[in-house]
């Protein structure tokens, strides 16, 4: 082990013994490091952690990652099916670089359905870092570089098909990542502040304050959430901008979401108050502030982070549900819930099932966050290893 020499303990001078070196580094590993050891053994959680990380990276660079401008309409491609990616051309020849054929639409005169026919005369190779639609990254830096696409501006690739107005669904889903994933975070941060204050006060002081707070939390929890959201969301003025609505929705979501976090914090505070090491610190003459910030908060943090991670998917689902019902974010904003509105009627789902793809993204994001949160929660438990 490379760590053997770093520990500086006498084991380092013993004949090279991997076991001893490992034991020494384990012994000198901090609680966070141990948490990481344990988390990294939980393979599913690690994979989901990578997925979540990817989603947030995508959310940060949506304009670059998306192949097209999400608002670019193309009536000729309305409801176009996902473009097929080919490796073998019409002549049966194999190409290492994937390519697509251009598509033209024509009306089938028997069924009156719009049919899309691949034009096999010209191959359009997919390539990385192509120049395409202009955009401003974060509304600041003008650019036209996209992660991938086809060089030829005339041919458009719809990897996940097109919607009613011929807009590229993949680009729209990628753009939706920003709002959908961030509303979860923003909502959780706000709930976290309400939760940590209410839960901390409840758990720290106990007694009557605790009883009253717990009854309030139970009351809030017992309210049916959907009608409450509907009521609050319907009260938002319709002339508000996208950003205003976004923050209003965040507030609405966290007004309900804080209860779970408050209960986690309260439970930890109550449990910690009884821990012997807190009493030991008191008997050592350690000041109250030092006990709170050096003993209690660090013991909290790992649990809180796990609880936060588990709260994000709830927010995402809530936002999706609200937007799907048309009461959350509205048209110019793009979120997965807004995109799913397109899939509200049976006709479009039957005609263009790819419109359900944003729903698949919600499932992926929520599952990934849940497994990640589970892994973190298990890793945060200092007595289970």
């Amino acid at each position, binding site marked *: 082990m490379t760590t053997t020499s770093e520990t*500086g*303990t*006498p084991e380092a001078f013993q004949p090279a013994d991997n076991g001893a070196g490992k*034991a020494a580094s*384990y*012994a*000198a*590993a*901090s*609680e966070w490091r*141990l948490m990481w050891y344990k988390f990294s053994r939980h393979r599913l959680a690690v994979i989901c952690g990578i997925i979540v990380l990817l989603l947030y990276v995508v959310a940060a660079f949506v304009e670059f990652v998306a192949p097209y401008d999400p608002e670019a309409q193309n009536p000729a491609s309305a409801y176009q099916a996902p473009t097929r990616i080919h490796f073998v051309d019409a002549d049966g020849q194999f190409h290492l670089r994937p390519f697509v054929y251009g598509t033209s639409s024509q009306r089938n005169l028997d069924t009156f359905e719009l049919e899309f026919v691949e034009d096999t005369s010209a191959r359009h190779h997919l390539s990385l870092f192509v120049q395409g639609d202009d955009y401003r990254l974060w509304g600041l830096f003008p650019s036209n570089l996209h992660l991938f696409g086809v060089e030829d501006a005339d041919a458009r690739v719809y990897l996940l098909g097109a919607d009613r107005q011929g807009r590229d669904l993949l680009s729209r889903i990628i753009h939706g990542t920003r709002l959908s994933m961030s509303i979860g975070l923003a909502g959780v941060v706000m709930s976290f502040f309400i939760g940590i204050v209410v839960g901390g006060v409840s758990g720290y002081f106990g*007694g*009557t304050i605790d*009883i*009253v707070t717990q009854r309030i939390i139970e009351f809030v929890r017992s309210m049916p959430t959907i009608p409450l959201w509907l009521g609050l969301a319907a009260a938002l003025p319709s002339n508000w901008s996208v950003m205003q609505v976004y923050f209003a929705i965040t507030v609405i979501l966290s007004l309900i979401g804080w209860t779970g976090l408050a209960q986690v914090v309260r439970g930890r505070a109550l449990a910690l108050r009884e*821990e*012997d*090491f807190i*009493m*030991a*610190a*008191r*008997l*050592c*003459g*350690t*000041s109250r502030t*030092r006990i709170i910030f050096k*003993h209690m908060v*660090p*013991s909290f943090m790992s649990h809180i982070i796990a609880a936060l991670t588990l709260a994000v998917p709830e927010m995402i689902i809530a936002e999706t549900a609200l937007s799907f019902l048309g009461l959350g974010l509205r048209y110019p904003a793009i979120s997965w819930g807004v995109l799913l509105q397109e899939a509200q009627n049976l006709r479009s789902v039957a005609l263009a099932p790819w419109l359900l793809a944003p729903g698949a993204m919600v499932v992926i994001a929520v599952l990934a966050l849940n497994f990640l949160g589970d892994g973190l929660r298990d890793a945060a438990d*200092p*007595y289970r*290893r």
Partner: protein
Amino acid sequence: MSAIEPAFTPAGRRLLDVKGLTKHYPITRGLLRREVGRVRAVDDVTFHVDEGETLGLVGESGCGKTSTGRCLLRAIDPTDGQIIFDRGDGKPVDIAQSEGGSLKALRRDMQMIFQDPFSSLNPRWTLLDLVGEPLVAFGVSKGKALEERVAYLLERVGLRPEYMRRYPHAFSGGERQRIGIARALALNPRLVVADEPVSALDVSVRAQTLNLLEELQQELGLTYLFISHDLSVVQHICDRVVVMYVGKVVEVAKTADLYFTPRHPYTEALLSAVPKPDPEQQSSRIVLQGEVADPSNIPSGCAFHPRCPYAIEKCRTVVPVLETIGDGQQVRCHRAHELSLRGVE
């Protein structure tokens, strides 16, 4: 000093004088926390501790021995009573009345060793932080000096000083208990309250830990209040023993007197339950009837009477007082004079 009896007994000066110590927990109901009863965890407990001795505090679980120990250190606030602590500077102080700065100053002189070597050490701190915590809290030392002091303390309790960068999870129960002992000794206290310090340990490391405690006592002139339910451990380490039952002291005696001539029927029953090393010997264990009395609903008269094989009518109605009989042995029993109880052979 005048408030306390002249105190130069052969065992040493009187270090701690506990008078009428009481800890009641109210039982509350409803939102307004109306008091509907009280748990008398510690009820009018009086005893003293001499400097340099080891005083055992024994009893079944729930008898109030841990609460008593915690009241002495003000880990919990007593409801009533005095705890006079005399450091020999002519200024005895009442721990029960101390607050803020004066209480913090007292903490330097009294420390605790915990029962559970796992929950009593913050898993997120290294040994250096843990053992150095009292030193940092009192601003005694920091930096290099702190490391040196911690290294010395670790060595003193039989741990390698190189381990100070490690976290408690790397140590066994016995080693963790040594860490706890090192922390308790960091400030050179006079009084150490050891709350069941070996009952969570394997039998194999109990003796080592007890020997360590005895060595440290001799070397550093420590005074121990040793709380335990294990009478064989108490016999090994204690000079005098206080027996508690449902929050009250029922017998106080020198260890040898208590073991050979117990005066209280409860002590006799406890002693009969001590396992004997000789398997041939007929077990003559006294099995007590019923459960330990509920401290929120203490029986009338002598709290022990429902379980006492010697109970008479008086025991049911009249509360006995703690009286001294024989050679300084104190007992709380109406029939102490007439009974001849069986000790350890």
